[in-house]
């Protein structure tokens, strides 16, 4: 059964149609890529899944439950993590503090509980969180920079910290918006390796948007192609690459 499925999703802002009747489903444990030309609506799809945009039609289910009307924070708490196209770290804070906030997702932030919280479970929870944090830091090899302020780090490292923060949430599904955009060859290779490791060792399903075709073709299990808010193809990287609609979208069409 699919861990994430999107059925007949449409999104429009005023009269402008951004997504039109898009359906796809993601199987547990796979790396599912969404590609398409600029402005095709890829990030809008992620924003609908994350709960930031309200679809005008369609439904989204995650882990067997309909989440179409669930708020973004509740989706996160249910195991949906996200990294952003433009790094969205908390800039004034250290690497460790950012990761701690990822681990925060496990905790309830009800108004009264948050203000009054100081129980015997506190210590136990702290130890548990420290383990989670250390585990993620080791996994992404960022031990050396854990005390540094994120604003001072190189771009590639910031992306890695953002990934660490998402992993600290112990997500079931990780949504990644252009994880290698703006990276050099070495950073790109590192990131691609981490994504594969996340899938293999951590059993996390990955849905990613990317422009770097080499990365997509190397690591994805399945690829969906969108153009002008419409789904035009879906399949394995090989199938998609030779799909006539995809070639048309990327290379244009010869006039007869």
């Amino acid at each position, binding site marked *: 059964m699919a861990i994430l499925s999107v059925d007949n999703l449409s999104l429009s802002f005023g009269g402008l149609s951004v997504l039109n009747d898009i359906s796809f489903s993601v199987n547990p444990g796979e790396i599912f890529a969404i590609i398409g030309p600029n402005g095709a609506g890829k990030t809008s799809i992620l924003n609908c899944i*994350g*709960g*930031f945009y309200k679809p005008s039609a369609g439904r989204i289910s995650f882990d067997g439950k309909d989440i179409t009307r669930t*708020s*973004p*924070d*509740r989706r*996160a*708490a249910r195991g949906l*993590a*996200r990294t*952003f196209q433009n790094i*969205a*770290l*908390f*800039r*004034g*804070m250290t690497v460790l*503090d950012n990761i*701690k*906030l*990822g681990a*925060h*997702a*496990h*905790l309830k*932030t*009800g*108004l009264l509980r*948050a*203000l009054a*919280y100081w129980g015997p479970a506190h210590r136990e929870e702290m130890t548990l969180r420290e383990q989670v944090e250390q585990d993620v830091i080791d996994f992404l090899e960022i031990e050396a920079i854990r005390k540094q302020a994120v604003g001072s780090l190189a771009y590639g490292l910031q992306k890695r910290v953002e990934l660490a*923060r*998402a992993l600290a*949430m112990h997500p079931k599904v990780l949504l990644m918006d252009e994880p290698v955009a703006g990276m050099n060859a070495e950073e790109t290779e590192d990131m691609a390796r981490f994504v594969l490791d996340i899938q293999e060792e951590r059993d996390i399903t990955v849905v990613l948007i990317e422009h770097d075709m080499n990365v997509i073709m190397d690591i994805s299990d399945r690829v969906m192609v969108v153009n002008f808010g419409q789904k035009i193809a879906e399949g394995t990287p090989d199938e998609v690459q030779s799909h006539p609609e995809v070639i048309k979208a990327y290379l244009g069409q010869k006039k007869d």
Partner: protein
Amino acid sequence: MDILAQLIVSGIAVGGVYALIALGFVVIYKATSIINFATGEFMMIGAYFFYTFLVMVGMPPIPSFLMVMLCSAMLGLFIERAILRHMLGQPTISIVMVTIGLSSILMGLAEMIWSTDFKNFPPLFPRAPIILGDIIIRSNLFWGFIVAMLAVAAFALLFKYAKVGVAMRATAGDQMAAFSMGINVRTMFTVAWSLGAIAAALGGVIIGNIGGIQPTLGNIGLKIFPVVILGGLDSIAGAVVGGFIVGLVENIAGGYLDPYVGGGVKDLAPFVVLVLILLIKPYGLFGKEDIERL
């Protein structure tokens, strides 16, 4: 020399109270990007809450103080849920107008409920002034300063270590990322309004205890604008430093210049310094550079 030392000490004492009220403003701005022009009225209502519990109900001072915190938290919660939540996504200027309207409403309500008569709290602290060497501080000012500093320290600790404080900082940093971390950003807005109202109200109790209360007490809140703009609208440390600067400037300038011009320098000086500092550092001493100014 004695006069200067005296002015500096009272400046610091008053500045500490300003810092607390400014904190009430900054907490709300930081989390929600709303400039709350009703901060002074939150302060005034807080003072009246204290008067109500202490004098009208007859509760002892400390429980009255706790009741002020509870009631102003409820007031902040109510105002956020009932009014400002519905303004999300509206232009900044509309939201600012709402807070200005809110300040008039609160002042009107105070007049209706507690009348316009000037009121005093019964003495809470020993009357005798505090004497440090050659310097004399009024007892209400001294104790007010101590209470204000304890409250500022408590807020600082809350933001640094408590879960809700960290979640609020995250919300202030990046709302979308905070949402994605499972933080309920809307709850954080409510918490910010409650905490902001508490900080302003405690400041109001202290000021009311020094000079008595009436519905126009909130006008002192105007002085909070030089404080927060000096410090940078979104900086907690800035609010504290700004508070001290404004306290010192108004006391020293007032003490030395008032005799020559016949008074009024105290109210003017902070704004002169404000303009000067903004000419040099447009984002305040500690402010984020991309703040949108009004």
